[in-house]
């Protein structure tokens, strides 16, 4: 495959189709509209279904239904639209269904603006919908990674029967970078993926002993049964925490005087500042959580070298991942934070200034 220059929104849509997604339901919103446009254009060409729902609420419930049928299904939106989907996401979690949800975040709260933000971290990793549940949350920092995560998200969703969220932002959605796609799955491969759900999906479309209907529901009126169900969900989450944690370690060494923690778009800008200060002889490391749930608590703790004076968190919000970093650092060294909000993205020069003040 040769590389193509594509927007993140289009690249993740193409990668989802190649990964076997044949059902996509969504409602348009900036800054993710190229994603829905791409799906509208391409889904009919691969024999899939694109449907622009009448609302985000309808779209997520269509996802609920299609996931119950054991098919690879996806929806996408941006912050205010994701809020609307939260009831359905909780139902999907309760019913233990595989689905992929993309949030191309913008500035909030409320309708906010349409520029990039990271202020939906709490919503994505601490709940958002009601009840005890988690989503696997993947946080890309480049167009290539955004695209790769589509396939990974479907695989994880299938493997653990859970919803997976890709938590991107307006910058990753709108920017173009070279991207190389994995080969598209064949019809036979997609059929094999679907058939792995025959033991629980609503109606396995097969002859023989596997052909019976299953009930899918998120309602369990008997408290003792619901209690056990939640315990089972958490056993599954514990396995995910053990197996699926991912993070990037950048320039981490014993010489580090500062350890930065940043995710997604913000981490790219922090990297630039680290590179510039490295030339000036200042040693700064960075941990970038790639899964923000599960979160790399121990890995952040382990990256605090003996010369680290401070852990510095940079986010495009008022300090949300900051709480998880504080849990990870557990008082070992001071934790500082700086962020920008309102859809304003900090610049490498601004981060450099903040880091210089530490020396």
């Amino acid at each position: 495959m040769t590389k193509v220059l594509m927007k993140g929104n289009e690249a993740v849509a193409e990668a989802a189709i190649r990964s076997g997604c044949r059902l996509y339901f969504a409602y348009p919103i900036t800054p993710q509209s190229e994603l829905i446009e791409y799906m509208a254009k391409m889904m009919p060409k691969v024999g899939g279904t694109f449907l622009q729902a009448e609302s985000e609420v309808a779209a997520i419930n269509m996802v609920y239904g299609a996931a119950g049928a054991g098919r690879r299904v996806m929806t996408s939106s941006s912050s205010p639209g994701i809020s609307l989907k939260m009831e359905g996401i909780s139902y999907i979690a309760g019913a233990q269904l595989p689905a992929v949800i993309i949030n191309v975040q913008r500035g909030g709260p409320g309708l906010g603006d349409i520029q990039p933000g990271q202020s939906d971290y709490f919503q994505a990793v601490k709940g958002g919908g009601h009840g005890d549940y988690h989503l696997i949350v993947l946080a890309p920092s480049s167009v290539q990674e955004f695209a790769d995560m589509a396939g990974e998200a479907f695989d994880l969703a299938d493997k653990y029967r859970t919803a997976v969220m890709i938590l991107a932002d307006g910058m990753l959605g709108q920017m173009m970078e070279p991207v190389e796609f994995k080969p598209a799955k064949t019809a036979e491969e997609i059929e094999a993926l679907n058939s792995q759900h025959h033991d629980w999906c609503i109606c396995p479309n097969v002859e023989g002993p596997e052909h019976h209907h299953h009930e899918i529901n998120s309602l369990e009126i008997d408290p003792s049964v619901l209690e056990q169900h939640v315990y089972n969900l958490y056993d599954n989450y514990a396995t995910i925490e053990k197996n699926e944690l991912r993070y990037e370690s950048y320039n981490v060494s014993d010489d580090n005087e500062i350890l930065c923690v940043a995710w997604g778009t913000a981490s790219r800008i922090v990297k630039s500042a680290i590179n510039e200060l490295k030339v000036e002889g200042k040693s700064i490391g960075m941990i970038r959580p790639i899964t923000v749930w599960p979160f790399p608590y121990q890995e952040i703790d382990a990256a605090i070298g003996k010369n680290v004076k401070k852990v510095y968190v940079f986010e495009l919000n008022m300090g949300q991942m900051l709480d998880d970093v504080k849990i990870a650092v557990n008082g070992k060294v001071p934790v500082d934070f700086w962020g920008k909000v309102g859809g304003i993205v900090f610049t490498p020069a601004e981060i450099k200034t903040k880091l210089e003040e530490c020396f």
Partner: protein
Amino acid sequence: MKAEIICAGFGGQGVLTIGKFIAKAGMAEGKHVSWLPSYGPEMRGGTANVSAVVSDEPIASPIVSYPDILVALNQPSLDKFGPTIRPGGVLVVDTGMCPHGLKRDDIQFVAAPFSSIAVEIGSMRVLNMLAIGAVIGRTNIIKYETIEEDLTAFLKAKNPDLLEQNLKAIKRGIEIGKL
């Protein structure tokens, strides 16, 4: 090699396209590239800008604080980004559209009435190709042949006359860039 570029002007002048062609050419030449547009409720006549980075190394930030190259096609863009050009950097400026200019003595100027030259060549629509030519002529960050190949693949069958006009504009831009 790493070149950080900002192209800015009125919506409709084709500034986003300048960045796109530079990024595509960089990619075709095996470089790391990124293209980050301003986006939002913009319209013809409003302002638009794009940051493009072409680099031998993986690109950390696609956001550019201090460009090595600025293409400014109107005065508000020059006022906003002109002071941020890195010392020793290059300013490609449309003198017809930027009557107040920029006072700096630590950067290189590629200054010409690009809009008037575009009209001379045949259409205001080739303004962005003139600017790309000027960047190539002065900096060599990408090769003329790469852009020619890309444009030919895109336009030869669809509109050979427009292709000729565009290539003519790039070549003229290169001449201006070399002055």
